[in-house]
């Protein structure tokens, strides 16, 4: 996409994040100097990178209260979710075939479950969430059957930022003797995680959401109390204790570890700073605009997440006014939308639908994802542009006009078709 203005503002940090310069710096030597294969046991080229990989394991495990040997390096969160769910279902097939998850999970979990169902390998319960997007641990308890082998509930949602009560869900899973996997992608490095206190048995995460490189993720698999077993989904040289064959992405792993180290050191301060910016953005917008609705939980939410529905204007038309497609003379702003028009399916966000947000409001949603490199000036500018664009598009909106005339839109459009 061409963009006449040089200045751009990135506020889509749920999608991905830039690599922190401190992360890039530690990665660089691992491309051309320390390029060895971590599986090469016969020479120093292998030894030096194996040491780096093992240190990275310590760092990653340390963040979540696990053991270093329980970390499996792989390509990212999607692969991690696939290995956790398919690996458990396949390994424990003699015990049962029932999986419990939530209908607001990421597609990496939902489509993995659907693939298992299609192949006849699992029966899956997709739990509904409340209007804030949360699972009640008692729903999990009620859904567990003697055939249940796995519960998979994310730490925090990628669209609405809602944080699930993992410790309570983990407690239920423990009581029932069922394994508990969490896709921690969005909350890893941003929220405190203690796998023992939260009763987690498998945890998926990826580097590129926490200012590390793309193409590097991890699956943490509990080795004691209980020892969790998996059937490998990748056959080959038996790397990662046979659970994930393939030469390790050493620069990625080293970068991931540095990213984790920074998150761990700065988590509390950074959470407060980003949360304050997010709250200010929300306030600046709602101080001026009426009929702006928050999607997700008001407090149990990722610090950087702000998902708003701007009644009477369609999300994609908003994005177009912000992202540099139009107004090429102005700085481009990167945010995302749950609008149908951003996808080829013409269906609005399934996550917003699951909250009970009506389709008419789901089409008007914008997700702001604030992160480490956003500034107060970014917040001021984004608020200003959003307000201007919403006002302009509402002037263009027949729905806004009708609502202001007192017409009840719901009854007016009853029976209307796509």
């Amino acid at each position, binding site marked *: *996409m061409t963009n006449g203005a040089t200045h751009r503002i990135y506020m889509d940090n749920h999608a991905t994040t830039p690599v922190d310069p401190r992360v890039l710096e530690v990665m660089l030597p691992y491309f051309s100097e320390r390029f060895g294969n971590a599986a090469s046991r016969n020479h120093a080229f292998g030894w030096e990178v194996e040491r780096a990989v093992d240190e990275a394991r310590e760092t990653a495990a340390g963040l979540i209260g696990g053991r270093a040997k329980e970390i499996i390096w792989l390509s990212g969160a999607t692969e991690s979710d696939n290995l956790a769910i398919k690996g458990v279902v396949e390994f424990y097939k003699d015990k049962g075939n029932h999986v419990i998850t939530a209908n607001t999970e990421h597609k990496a979990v939902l489509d993995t479950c659907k693939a298992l169902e299609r192949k006849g390998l699992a029966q899956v319960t997709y739990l509904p969430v409340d209007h804030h997007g949360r699972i009640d641990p008692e729903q999990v308890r009620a859904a567990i059957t003697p055939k249940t082998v796995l519960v998979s509930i994310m730490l925090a949602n990628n669209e609405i930022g809602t944080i699930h009560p993992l410790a309570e869900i983990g407690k239920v899973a423990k009581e029932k003797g069922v394994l508990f996997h969490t896709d921690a992608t969005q909350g890893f490095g941003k929220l405190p995680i203690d796998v023992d206190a939260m009763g987690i048995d498998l945890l998926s995460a990826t580097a590129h959401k926490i200012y590390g490189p793309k193409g590097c993720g991890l699956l943490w698999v509990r080795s004691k109390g209980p020892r969790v077993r998996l059937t490998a989904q990748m056959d080959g040289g038996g790397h990662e204790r046979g659970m994930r064959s393939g030469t390790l992405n050493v620069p990625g792993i080293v970068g991931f570890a540095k990213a984790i180290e920074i998150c761990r050191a700065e988590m509390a301060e950074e959470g407060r700073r980003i949360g304050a910016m997010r709250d200010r953005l929300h306030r600046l917008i709602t101080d001026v605009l009426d009929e702006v609705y928050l999607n997700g939980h008001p407090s149990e939410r990722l610090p950087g997440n702000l998902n708003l529905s701007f009644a*009477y*204007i*369609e999300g*994609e*038309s908003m*994005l*177009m*006014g912000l992202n540099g*497609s*139009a*107004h090429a003379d102005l700085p481009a702003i990167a945010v995302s939308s749950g*609008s*149908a*028009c*951003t996808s*080829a399916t*013409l269906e*609005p966000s399934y996550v917003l639908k699951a909250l009970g947000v*009506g*389709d*008419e409001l789901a*089409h008007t949603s914008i997700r702001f994802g604030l992160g480490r490199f956003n500034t107060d000036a970014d917040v001021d500018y984004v608020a200003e542009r959003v307000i201007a664009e919403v006002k302009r598009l509402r*002037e*263009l*909106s*027949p*729905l*806004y*006009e009708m609502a202001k005339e007192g017409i009840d*839109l719901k009854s*007016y*459009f*009853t*029976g*209307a*078709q*796509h």
Partner: protein
Amino acid sequence: MATYSDKVIDHYSNPRNVGSFSKDEPNVGTGIVGAPECGDVMKLQLKINDAGVVEDARFKTFGCGSAIASSSYVTELVKGKSVDEVMGIKNSLIVDELSLPPVKIHCSVLAEDAIKAAVKDWKSRREGEPAREKDDTAAA
């Protein structure tokens, strides 16, 4: 998301003939098509003189950039044309003019529907029948 043609961007950034005529004017036909649940609602108004020629047009649209552009373009397209001519406008003309990609063709269909709904409303007003506005216009 689709990348937009220059014409879509132009209509989105500088929409033509935005606004509303009074619905009560006898020579104004109003068409409201689409539904909020579907992410697209267009309101098109045509001011048609006694000779059956569209003298002026106004629109308001809730929808993506391509929907806004389609309706903005239609307001330009219909001016000076006879009722018969505007009833013959096909959505493919809008697709071609704005270079709409396949996922946005429904925007042009809605714009064509809006023209037909507006003319129908104008006709029913002229014939002095009480305008069955809601039924005529909401079900696109």
